[in-house]
């Protein structure tokens, strides 16, 4: 009889706790920092046939701040870009795994490490900056996504961050490896970046009634464990060949001065030189040059030459002479060249990165 009564009394208390817990459970996965966790036990007993019930003190502690974050690169592949391109974007996400709202300071870093999936770094981006995807559309919008730090990120929330930079106009560059370093900062003041969090010293006795800061972030490449920071890597990659051509004209001889300081007078022979340069990093292939013979000049038959570029005024260093028709073995002896009556045409199978090839032909001034 008594036991039944005890049970009922206990069930009353238990039912109370169930009602409270249901409303409190459907929150974030982690218990928010600053939550007071209270526990109170009850005991029922009988003495000399009398039922008594008493509650204990409340055992309590405050949940401390467990600082953690995740930074990830989006896409899994380098951003393809080109020489001299501006506002080139690599994309990352930052997730707040802390059990509290935090700010995050963002650092856009140039790296010189080599990462197998990204390539070997051999240049740095210019004016590399980090911007938050303020409008949340996953795409960098210049002038719209201008926030340079993450403001008030809720627990378990993720935000997209862009690294934006300009590619220098330097021949030969191929891969720039960059990284985004996110540093957990103090939250709570909307519209302003808080100070970097500092872990509570483990040498100081902690208090059950205050929120201590405990770093719980993992280690990573170039990242120390439990430092309140995480880093992820991405790269810019220039995959295309950048081919440029420069055309120049040199007077070879004239009917008066012959080869000594010739002038461009009627009857003079002029050599046109077209220099094709490849700034890389890819190899340019199947290049076809066409150039109409200028007015008031006459093509010199058999004057086409194609080969590697010369120096000190010489157009060709090492090449082949081409006849004027478009057939025969001379069209496939590495290079090709022809003249159809109005236009000079030359073919180059490949131009290697940072190399140049030239095409020369001569005309007589009418």
């Amino acid at each position: 009889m008594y036991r039944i009564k005890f049970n009922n009394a206990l069930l009353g208390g238990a039912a109370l706790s169930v009602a409270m817990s249901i409303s409190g459970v459907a929150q974030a996965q982690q218990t928010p920092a600053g939550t007071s966790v209270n526990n109170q036990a009850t005991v029922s007993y009988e003495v000399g046939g009398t039922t008594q019930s008493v509650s204990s003190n409340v055992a309590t502690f405050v949940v401390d701040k467990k600082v953690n974050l995740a930074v990830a690169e989006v896409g899994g592949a380098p951003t393809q870009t080109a020489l001299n391109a501006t506002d080139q974007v690599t994309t990352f996400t930052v997730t707040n795994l802390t059990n509290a709202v935090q700010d995050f300071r963002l650092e856009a870093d140039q790296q010189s490490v080599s990462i197998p999936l990204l390539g070997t770094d051999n240049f740095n981006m210019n004016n590399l900056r980090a911007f938050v995807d303020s409008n949340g559309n996953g795409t960098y919008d210049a002038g719209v996504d201008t926030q340079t730090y993450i403001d008030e990120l809720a627990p378990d929330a993720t935000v997209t961050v862009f690294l934006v930079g300009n590619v220098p106009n330097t021949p030969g560059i191929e891969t720039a490896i960059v990284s985004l370093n996110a540093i957990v900062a103090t939250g709570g003041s909307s519209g302003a970046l808080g100070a970097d969090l500092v872990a509570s010293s483990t040498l100081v006795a902690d208090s059950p009634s205050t929120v201590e800061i405990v770093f719980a972030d993992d280690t990573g490449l170039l990242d120390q464990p439990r430092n309140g920071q995480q880093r992820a890597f991405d790269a810019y990659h220039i995959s295309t060949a950048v081919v440029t051509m420069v055309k120049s004209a040199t007077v070879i001889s004239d009917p008066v001065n012959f080869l000594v300081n010739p002038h461009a007078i009627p009857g003079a022979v002029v050599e046109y030189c077209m220099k094709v340069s490849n700034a890389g990093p890819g190899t340019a292939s199947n290049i076809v040059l066409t150039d109409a013979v200028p007015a008031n000049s006459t093509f010199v038959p058999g004057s086409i030459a194609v080969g590697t570029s010369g120096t000190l005024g010489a157009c060709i260093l090492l090449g082949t002479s081409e006849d004027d028709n478009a057939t025969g073995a001379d069209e496939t002896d590495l290079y090709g060249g022809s003249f159809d009556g109005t236009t000079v045409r030359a073919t180059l199978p490949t131009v290697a990165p940072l190399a140049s090839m030239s095409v020369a032909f001569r005309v007589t001034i009418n």
Partner: protein
Amino acid sequence: MSYLLFIAALANAAPAPGQVEIHASVLAEARAPATDGTTRVTLVPAARITPGDRLVYRIEYRNNGKQAATGLVIANPVPAALQYAGPADGAPAPELSVDGQTFGPLSALKIRSGTTLRPATAADIRVVRWRLAQPVAAGARGQVSFRAILK
């Protein structure tokens, strides 16, 4: 409001401050590698607690009266932020409940979801309870405890 009334009624019904006194305390499990390669778990005051940490709740009881107390039933609601993780080392296993109505071992508990019943898991436990079979003699004391993980 009804809860408040209920508590008030309970307080009024209870006789003068009891002979049996209970005291609840919360401790944290601190893990440290021992020289023999194992991990040594020690209990420290619950000060630096973050989600995922393991806690031990200890409930000490003492009979301050001059007569033996019988039929001791100690009930402890599991705080909402905690997940029950079994009895503490050396402590008797409590009876468990997911609803405060039915108590038993975890394997006997079911959760109703819609029209079906599924077995309860440790995450569903809302109340733990110990029923002491032996009377607590005058002046005697003892303790029960359970482990929990901060969600």
